[in-house]
């Protein structure tokens, strides 16, 4: 069954998205937002959650696909599914818990009960119905395609989407790097810093790879981290002077995915990441403990507690920053939830006993820094942009930094675009991709047969 969407364009998108700028109504028009929830958040692979959040059969969590309430779960047979959290009877949500374990969901309104495969298990007093409840139309709707890439679960309603691995394309390589830096490639989500702002979701996306704002937006964080004279080059200090001349770069992979790779700023040797890590609770005591046990080899464990210097962004809602999995959850045209999930390393037979706990004791605390002392300032700036964009006659948001400067931006034979860290090339490319999505008319569909 198809979800119908208008085939007539809402706006003249080519007029609103120019090579160097985008129109303010992309951020302010509720009709644009409504259409995005279908044409963007329904039509591409959207990140839903991490497998470590639902490790066992029957585990579930509730989230959204765009605005659609969904239950992401591992069913009783172990299959990953994203069920619509919407009773097929009268529309109530059937699951109201944030997470848990359940073989079935009973709607609190009239007691219709669904297995975690989505199949209707039964309704109270069925002799009051003449219909055949075996008809698939009474099963919970579910996201047609759900796939996991190395623990990262995505869903799409678009049967035309390529396989998830192909959707990620070359962006899967830095994701692999990020996963594989952890022992055994294992990570587990460990709580979250949950934030919201009164602004359009794309304001966060516009910032995802922005190396231009750092020393201005995060001036207070940089000053705080470097307030002790004895160690003046902590955190993101490499932005302080001429960031375009630093080895870091911005790279765009197509489909709106991009990377700001700051790793080249840091020496490639054990302990180099830990050396620039700012002060945080537990730093000296746990470092001393690890050094006493492992000697010089402690560096590789300490590096795992340090923030990985990348910002990898998978369109439209997944951002890998440091050790965080950040997820954008649009609420309305001018409200967005942004969840910064922490990640921990996971113990395994390939690791010395107890070391995971010590690394994570540090890593939990290092991850609290940026959301508390950096992101709050970003979100404030996003809110102030939303206010500024209320100025109707001043129509344009410019994103032309780096444009038309010969030799500044390169494109390789695979179509991968690379530019200096402060370039807005990633904005130009993703918003162009967004425009193509908004022009398209994908035939989205849900699945009813478990």
């Amino acid at each position, binding site marked *: 069954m198809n979800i119908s969407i208008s085939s007539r364009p809402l706006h003249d998108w080519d007029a609103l998205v120019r090579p160097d700028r985008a129109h303010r109504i992309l951020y302010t028009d509720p009709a644009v937002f409504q259409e995005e929830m279908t044409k963007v958040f329904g039509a591409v692979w959207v990140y839903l959650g991490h497998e470590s959040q639902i490790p066992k059969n029957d585990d579930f969590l509730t989230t959204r696909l765009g605005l659609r309430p969904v239950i992401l779960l591992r069913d009783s047979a172990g299959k990953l599914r994203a069920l619509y959290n919407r009773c097929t009877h009268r529309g109530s949500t059937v699951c109201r818990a*944030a997470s848990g374990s359940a073989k079935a969901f009973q709607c609190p309104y009239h007691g219709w009960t669904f297995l975690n495969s989505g199949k209707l298990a039964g309704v109270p007093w069925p002799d009051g119905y003449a219909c055949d409840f075996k008809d698939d139309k009474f099963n919970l709707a579910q996201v047609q395609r759900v796939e996991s890439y190395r623990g990262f679960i995505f869903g799409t309603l678009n049967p035309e989407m390529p396989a998830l691995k192909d959707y990620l394309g070359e962006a899967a390589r830095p994701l692999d790097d990020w996963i594989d830096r952890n022992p055994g490639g294992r990570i587990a989500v*460990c*709580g*979250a*810093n*949950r*934030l*919201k*702002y*009164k602004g359009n979701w794309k304001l966060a996306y516009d910032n995802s790879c922005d190396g231009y704002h750092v020393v201005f*937006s995060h*001036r*207070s*964080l940089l*000053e*705080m*981290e470097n*307030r*002790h004279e004895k160690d003046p080059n902590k955190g993101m200090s490499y932005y302080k002077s001429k960031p375009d001349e630093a080895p870091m770069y911005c790279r765009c992979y197509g489909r709106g995915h991009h990377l700001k790779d700051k790793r080249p700023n840091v020496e490639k040797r054990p302990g180099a990441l830990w050396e620039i890590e700012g*002060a*945080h*609770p*537990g*730093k*000296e*005591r*746990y470092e001393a*403990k690890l050094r006493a046990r492992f000697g010089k080899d402690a560096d590789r464990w300490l590096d795992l507690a340090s923030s990985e210097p990348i910002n990898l962004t998978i369109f439209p809602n997944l951002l890998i920053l440091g050790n965080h999995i950040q997820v954008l959850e649009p609420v309305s045209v001018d409200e967005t*939830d*942004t*969840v910064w999930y*922490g990640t921990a390393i996971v113990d395994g037979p390939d690791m010395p006993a107890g070391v995971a*706990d010590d690394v*994570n*004791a540090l890593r*939990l*605390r290092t*991850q*609290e820094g940026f959301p*508390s*002392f950096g992101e*709050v*300032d970003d*979100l*404030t*700036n996003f*809110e102030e942009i939303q206010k500024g964009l209320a100025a109707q006659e001043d129509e344009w948001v410019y994103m032309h930094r780096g444009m038309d400067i010969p030799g500044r931006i390169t494109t390789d034979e695979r179509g991968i675009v690379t530019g200096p860290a402060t370039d807005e090339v990633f904005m130009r490319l993703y918003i162009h991709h967004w425009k193509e999505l908004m022009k398209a008319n994908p035939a989205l569909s849900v699945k009813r047969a478990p």
Partner: protein
Amino acid sequence: MNQESYVDEAFYRELAAGFTGWQREDRRIGDPALLESCRSMLHLEARLLDEGRFEDWLALFADECLFWVPGSPGGDPQREIAVAFDDRRQLEGRIYRLRTGHAWSQVPQSRTSRIVANVEAFRGASDAVCMVRSSFLITEFRGGETRMFAGWNAHRLARAGSGWRILVKQVNLIDCDQNLRNPSLLL
């Protein structure tokens, strides 16, 4: 001031022990003078924060202290990230950042009015330490909007002369596991 962190395994163990099952009737402090001294401490603390006297507020804390805002009800700081888990150095950093004038989430600074109520005190591990539970309602005005933060605090206080110093302040927001809008003010 020693700028090294004192947080280690023993610190976490002691914290977990001290913050588990402490609101017990058999430990309730009934002495009106003692209870009043705890209440006065909380009122002073609230006033210093409302007046933006963050350095004076920090001076209420012991040298080895903790400012802790769990990210879920009863959240284990060794299992999940917190809204805040600041040792002395980080708490100083938090205030330092607010004082730079470039912490945009607090420019302009929030105006707050705090109500602290339902104060109950319980004996701690020794006579030198007590645990205080209070409810709070912070009304905040910033950027043309008025909003509220609500919850309850657990203070672990240590005797200091005739008064108290704060060893641990645990701030339990009722919506700590929800999406918070600009939690950059000092709670």
